[in-house]
């Protein structure tokens, strides 16, 4: 075990991981031009393995894990634990905290948009890059029970048995970008809705991930009714697929992934100020009501003045205008690791200062000796 720790704690590993990260940043930045920002991030930084053509190489996540293990192992070296190296230990602690913060951000953070029409209200965030297959039980008059299957589990041949649903779902095909083509002949009764007359054909992903239109073909079984069969859905399908099983009504939609919030935001007024004499926008702002436990609180969200509430931060990101009125688009970030970079930077600065102060007498005496 000691030898493993010694090998893992080799400072050369740290140097190589830093160099490898620089290469990944370089390649990822170049790749972004052709594949778009989102897919470049996913392929090179958010993956355990990245692919340089057919060759698998450590991705950003694996590289950071190796760096983390290396720094942890380094702390177990007896030679480090000396009074004169307190500063270095503190710097290491700060760097470890930074990596932990990065890990928390990678696994638990969430980014999305909240789209609000003037006078409208919303209590969910939409992730424009990911889809979800939602089974909405609409039986009750006041509320809907939603069972959501995120894109990451919509793998071909995946069989899912969500506890809240009285049927089994088998994913036959899922394409993050697809198009429909009419079948030459209608399929039989086992095929329902869109699947009866249309085929799903995969398309290459668009550079901008939010331009993709996902499509899914799946089989529902074990209802022991006519509802058993093959279904197909498209992202943005305006008339959703419905299903009746055991006196329960379900609406099936393939939509952008949603995260529901414990509060709601109501857009009271959206303001756009233009530079005088031009149509170039100078600033945007959204006057909103933050409604929590039925108590509204009026807040103004401006560019560079976001609303922070609980773990969520709402930024004024964009807007749209149509005949029906103005719509404000807020970028929403939920990040538990938000404070880690600040705290770890302070710790590392403090560590460097301590190290400098501890080394100062040695530095001064060596200069004195040289002069003498």
């Amino acid at each position: 075990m000691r030898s493993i720790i010694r090998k893992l704690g080799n400072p050369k590993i740290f140097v190589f991981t830093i160099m490898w990260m620089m290469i990944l940043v370089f390649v990822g930045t170049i790749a972004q031009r052709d594949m778009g920002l989102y897919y470049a991030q996913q392929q090179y930084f958010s993956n355990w393995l990245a692919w340089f053509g057919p060759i698998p190489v450590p991705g950003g996540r694996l590289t950071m894990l190796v760096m983390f293990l290396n720094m942890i192992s380094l702390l177990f070296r007896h030679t480090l634990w000396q009074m004169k190296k307190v500063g270095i230990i503190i710097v290491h602690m700060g760097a470890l905290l930074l990596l932990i913060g990065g890990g928390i951000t990678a696994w638990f953070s969430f980014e999305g948009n909240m789209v609000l029409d003037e006078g409208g209200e919303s209590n969910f965030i939409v992730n424009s890059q990911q889809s979800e297959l939602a089974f909405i039980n609409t039986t009750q008059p006041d509320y809907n029970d939603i069972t959501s299957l995120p894109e990451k589990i919509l793998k071909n041949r995946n069989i899912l048995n969500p506890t809240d649903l009285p049927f089994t779902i088998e994913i036959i095909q899922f394409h993050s970008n697809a198009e429909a083509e009419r079948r030459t002949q209608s399929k039989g009764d086992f095929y329902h809705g869109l699947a009866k007359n249309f085929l799903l054909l995969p398309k290459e992903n668009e550079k901008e991930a939010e331009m993709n239109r996902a499509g899914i073909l799946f089989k529902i079984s074990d209802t022991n009714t006519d509802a058993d069969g093959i279904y197909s859905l498209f992202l943005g399908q305006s008339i959703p697929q419905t299903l009746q099983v055991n006196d329960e009504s379900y609406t099936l939609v393939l939509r952008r992934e949603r995260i529901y919030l414990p509060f709601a935001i109501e857009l009271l007024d959206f303001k756009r100020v233009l530079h005088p004499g031009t149509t170039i926008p100078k600033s945007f702002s959204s006057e909103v009501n933050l409604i929590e436990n039925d108590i509204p609180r009026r807040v103004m969200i401006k560019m560079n003045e976001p609303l922070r509430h609980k773990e969520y931060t709402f930024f004024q990101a964009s807007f749209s205008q149509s005949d029906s009125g103005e719509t404000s688009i807020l970028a929403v970030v939920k990040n538990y690791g938000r404070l880690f970079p600040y705290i770890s930077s302070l710790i590392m600065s403090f560590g460097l200062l301590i190290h400098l102060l501890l080394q100062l007498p040695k530095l001064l005496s060596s200069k004195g000796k040289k002069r003498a």
Partner: protein
Amino acid sequence: MNQRFILLPLLLFFICTSCDNNRHVRYYRVQKEAINPTVISQPSAPSSINWNTPTHWVSTKGSSMRIGSFDVPFADGIGDVSVIKLGGAAGGLAPNINRWRGQLNLKPHSEIEIQQYVKNEESQLGTFQWFTIINPEENETAFLASIFQIETHTIFVKLSATTHGISQLESQFLDFCKSFTSGATQ
């Protein structure tokens, strides 16, 4: 050196990977809302299509593929109007016309034949092509259709009615198609 120290980061790693929220089925209970998917900025294609519906047209549920569906009354019956939006060229003009001709038991036409009766009209969404498909031997069903080809999408608007109904509804149908606009997004 205690083995627990090396197990600590490994444990952390497994906790992190097992807690990935995006790999689990999620359950929610939410207040009722309209289940209309939110569409965000799609600069190269209209994010939403608007039109002016004639007052006596009745909006119907239609199939899941339709973005608009109407029952259209005329003197001696009811026609069916469908609006369908598909990605890309959706097969192109001639194959779609021939598919509809096939539904009316008519032989396919060549591209040159088709160009002789396809007409162009303008809407705010762009130029669209329209045409009628009638089988003189079967008056019960005929089609009046238009096709909008817009960069990354194709929109099909089709009126299905009797031959008599098609002639009665032609001007309404064309006014409906001309009213097509996109919900501009910035």
